[in-house]
């Protein structure tokens, strides 16, 4: 057997090479750079790499638009329009997520454990914290995951698909277990994610094997050709296709393969949750879209019942369970499941407009998701008097004097001064702790409300444009019952987004309805908003601008996506 080294068109691969290369350099930085220099170096490296990715996508764009794209690495990767769009979206969202993860806020601590290997609650952990250690490995890990995500939707054969899946998943399993607070919860989430993820990978691999047995090839184009020509092995094809789809639907978080989502989203460090919820979903939907549109269109009628069931179940289950959640991260987790269902309606449409719609939806959803989790990471709880004195003393050091933002509302200006001494703990994720945030931090709460309205699909936000695009594609593809269910689910989903807005704006911190008297009350809030170093605020601002812009003037972006939204066969 003779192996021909494939001719590698490096230029086509630059969007992927940037993050992967930077990640490798990042590992070397961890090994050789002095501790003080690591953090700034890693941050600069990550941001430059992701910017480089976006720029190289821009450079490849005109060529791909004119030629329709090329096969790279002997057909293992396909650089076509959807690939470029997805890579740009992933790089952009990852850039924003890195900014949020890098923010150490006014508490001087980032969201990650000082020493992830230390046993929670041990003396080792405490001394690592006192020594001011930090796991700057977070940045290369995020870059590795991003690289995997950017390959995932660009693959041209099933083996590369599997490799990309592992490259993106393994760093995420690790990152999930690295939360600074509630570490046991975080490690439990990591374990669950890893186990279930491993099962899903195994199923995907099994499906790949069956498809190989059926068609004799791992290449998408060969399998697609075999679907229409080969007869008599339908069982192999059907089971193989189902297993591959299940592997992808797991990553997407579709019902009934969603059960990891809430726990993992809740346990992971919040910036990582935002990163996973946005970027992983974009990558996984990208891959699903490609498989569905280029490999399996010939099986449309066989797969339709399953895909319809999954889409309907995802929309309904995500919405209904979100209604009864009391933790803001779990609410967002279930809402992300519901959104996966909405996107699936566009995927199933199998209409040309479906590709554009799904790609646009992913951008709109990703921007709001990264922003929303960024805000969650800034809303913290403050220790109350019940906290043991020792913990108070040890944590109090970390709190800078200006915990409350300088421009905080005059109505709460009467905060007892000694409050600033109380230590700031982890995120205030219980819904009741968000009560009255609109009064005390109007700008933050308004921005969060904007993201929620976008999730709810209110016109003039990006979410509406996305939903409209997806549902039109579904109707266009003859799936109007899906669109109808999607619309009804949106109406129900609006309830829990609205409930959050009610909490923030129409409820006093004590939980009762606001009256003018309450505005002057000087009760000590248990919830504080920490001041960002600037990174997170910048990222959230970009997300907010995107959300409004894609809602009011989506034309240019839609145009840009539509002109390249054709898969290479």
């Amino acid at each position, binding site marked *: 057997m003779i192996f021909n080294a494939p001719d590698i068109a490096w230029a086509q691969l630059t969007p992927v090479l940037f993050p992967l290369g930077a990640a490798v350099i990042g590992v070397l930085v961890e090994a050789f750079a002095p501790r003080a220099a690591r953090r700034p170096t890693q941050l600069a490296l990550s941001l430059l790499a992701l910017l480089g990715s976006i720029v190289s996508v821009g450079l490849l764009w005109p060529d791909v638009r004119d030629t329709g794209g090329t096969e790279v690495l002997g057909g293992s990767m396909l650089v076509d329009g959807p690939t470029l769009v997805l890579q740009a979206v992933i790089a952009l969202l990852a850039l924003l997520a890195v900014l949020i993860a890098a923010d150490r806020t006014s508490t001087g601590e980032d969201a990650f454990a000082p020493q992830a290997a230390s046993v929670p609650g041990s003396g080792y952990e405490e001394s690592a914290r006192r020594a001011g250690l930090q796991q700057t490995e977070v940045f290369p890990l995020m870059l590795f995951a991003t690289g995997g995500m950017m390959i995932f939707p660009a693959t041209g054969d099933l083996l590369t698909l599997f490799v990309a899946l592992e490259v993106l998943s393994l760093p995420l399993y690790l990152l999930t277990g690295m939360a600074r607070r509630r570490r046991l919860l975080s490690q439990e989430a990591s374990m669950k994610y890893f186990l279930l993820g491993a099962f899903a990978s195994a199923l995907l691999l099994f499906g790949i094997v069956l498809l190989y047995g059926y068609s004799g090839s791992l290449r998408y184009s060969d399998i697609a050709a075999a679907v229409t020509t080969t007869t008599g092995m339908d069982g192999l094809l059907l089971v193989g296709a189902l297993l591959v789809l299940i592997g992808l639907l797991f990553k997407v978080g579709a019902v009934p393969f969603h059960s990891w989502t809430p726990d993992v989203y809740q346990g992971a460090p919040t910036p990582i949750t935002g990163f996973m919820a946005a970027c992983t979903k974009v990558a996984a939907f990208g891959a699903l879209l490609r498989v569905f549109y280029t490999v399996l269109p010939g099986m449309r009628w066989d797969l339709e019942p399953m895909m319809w069931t999954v889409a309907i179940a995802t929309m309904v289950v995500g919405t209904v369970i979100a209604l009864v959640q009391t933790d803001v991260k779990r609410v967002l987790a279930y809402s992300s499941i519901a959104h996966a269902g909405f996107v699936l309606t566009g995927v199933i449409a199998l209409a040309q407009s479906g590709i554009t719609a799904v790609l646009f939806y992913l951008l709109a959803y990703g921007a709001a998701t990264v922003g929303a989790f960024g805000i969650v990471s800034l809303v913290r709880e403050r220790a109350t008097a019940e906290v043991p004195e020792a913990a108070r003393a040890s944590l109090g050091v970390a709190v800078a004097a200006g915990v409350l933002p300088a421009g905080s509302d005059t109505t709460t200006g009467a905060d007892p001064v000694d409050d600033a001494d109380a230590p700031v703990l982890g995120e205030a994720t219980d819904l009741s702790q968000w009560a009255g945030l609109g009064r005390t931090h109007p700008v933050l709460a308004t921005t969060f409300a904007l993201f929620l309205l976008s999730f709810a699909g*209110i016109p003039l936000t990006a979410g509406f444009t996305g939903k409209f695009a997806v549902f039109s594609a579904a109707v266009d593809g003859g799936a109007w019952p899906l669109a109808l269910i999607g619309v009804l689910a949106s109406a129900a989903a609006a*309830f829990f987004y*609205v409930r959050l807005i009610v909490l923030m*704006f129409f409820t006093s911190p004590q939980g009762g309805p606001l009256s*003018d008297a309450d505005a002057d009350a000087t009760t000590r809030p248990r919830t504080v908003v920490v001041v960002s170093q600037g990174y997170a605020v910048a990222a959230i601002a970009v997300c907010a601008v995107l959300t409004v812009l894609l809602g009011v003037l989506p*034309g240019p972006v*839609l145009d840009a996506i539509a002109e390249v939204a054709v898969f290479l066969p």
Partner: protein
Amino acid sequence: MLTLTPAATVPADVPWLTLLLVWPLIGAAVLWALPRPAGSTVAGPRRVREIALGFALVEVVLAVVAGITAFGSGADAGSYQLYEIHRWIPQFGVSYALGVDGVGMLLIGMAVVLVPLVVLASWKEQGSQTAASNRLRHYLALVLVLTSFMVAVFAARDLFLFYVLFEAMLIPVYFMIGAFGGPQRRYAAVKFLLFSLAGGLVMLVGVIVLYLHGPGGEQGFLISNLTGLDLPTGTGRWLFLAFFLAFAIKAPMFPVHSWLPDAAEQAPAGTSTLLVGVLDKVGTFGMLTLCLPLFPEASRWAAPVIIALALVSIFYGALLALGQQDLFRLVAYTSVSHFGFIVLGIFAFTSTSVGGSSFYMVNHGLSTGGLFLLVGFLVARKGSARIADFGGLQKVTPVLAGTFLVIGLSALSLPGLSTFVSEFLVIVGTFGSHRPAAIIAAVAVVLAALYVLWTYQRVFTGPVRDELAETRDLSGRERWVVGPLIALMLVLGFYPAPALHLVDEPATATITQVGVADAPDPVTAGDEGSEQ
């Protein structure tokens, strides 16, 4: 791309409608950009009020000038004047298209006239402390944002644009109820939002399906491109139902009206005025300008049921109004009854009744808006909206009592006041095509007299209650709120010809589109004489 101006439209030399739409937004931005009032100065709140009032008054002037430009020279009120069209999202077939026919112009006029009155009426409502003045600033800014949406929704000539505005309007209203209302306002605000959103989203599916049946292309959502499509009968009927449900919730009609009394009870009086006076008109306006022209066959098919529902609404609203303890809820239920009349007129399919309904929308905005504002004044004095807490106010506050009586009489359609003209036209027009329905509806007028006069009796007549003896009469500011409304009702009551001219041609055009032979109208000729 902009060359395709649909037929029956007259392009605008000056973008009046865009101007009307942008001006209040500038006002809201100015209010929000004001520095936070420092200390306990009185200047802060006063400046906020003056700025808001100034913007609202200029908006009225703009609307009047725009109206005269469009229709002053006897232009055809049935075609769309001041037409503007620009590409917005060509990928979806969406254009930014604005234009008004006579009905749209009248409703825009009504909306912008109510706004300064609401601003005036809200001066005291939010208190005068520093924190409260900051709240007042937000409230008035939201009122101005809402103004912009109200103008735009009545002028939208693109179905997508209409839908976007239809939904986006909910957000300012939601905050106006939820942040500034009574004790149960969170419940009321959420109920309002969810009812409206549910209806709107079902309509969204209809909008998409209709577009796919249309010609498509970059201007596929233009209403003119979607009118007169040859829809399959079944599809047309389903689409009609999707649209009608959204509008019936908005209007609101029995049996999907239950959000209105809650919202009206909990919202500040100014919000209720705009909500019932203007926003709910979007529902009936949508039936008139979208349901009928887009789905003529389905409209004819559904008309008998809808007329029955309208009659139920008329009686149900009136009877429940009689049973209310709370003045805000009472006014809300009278509106359900009035909306029944409007819907009845629209689906009776005679040019007289449709024209009457169009005019009714304006008059109802004036009279119900006035009632809400007056009840707001009563509540400001007593701190309660319960009817049982009042009595004998006539002797203490004669001006308040008098204005309440006049506006109440307009709500019961007393001849000489504008509502009479429109209610008369609706019943007469309906008589031409649906005789029994007209007779039943006419009976309901008695109920209207009952709920208005009985309420007046309980609140204003009888012995003066001790704790009410010191009640202030209407202040100068409050007289300025009510005065213009009563003046408008009298003018339109005695000289309705200009307004009727504006609604007449659109009504005829609509009837033609529905494809019903206009009922032989026994009254039109004699009618004109009796009104003028």
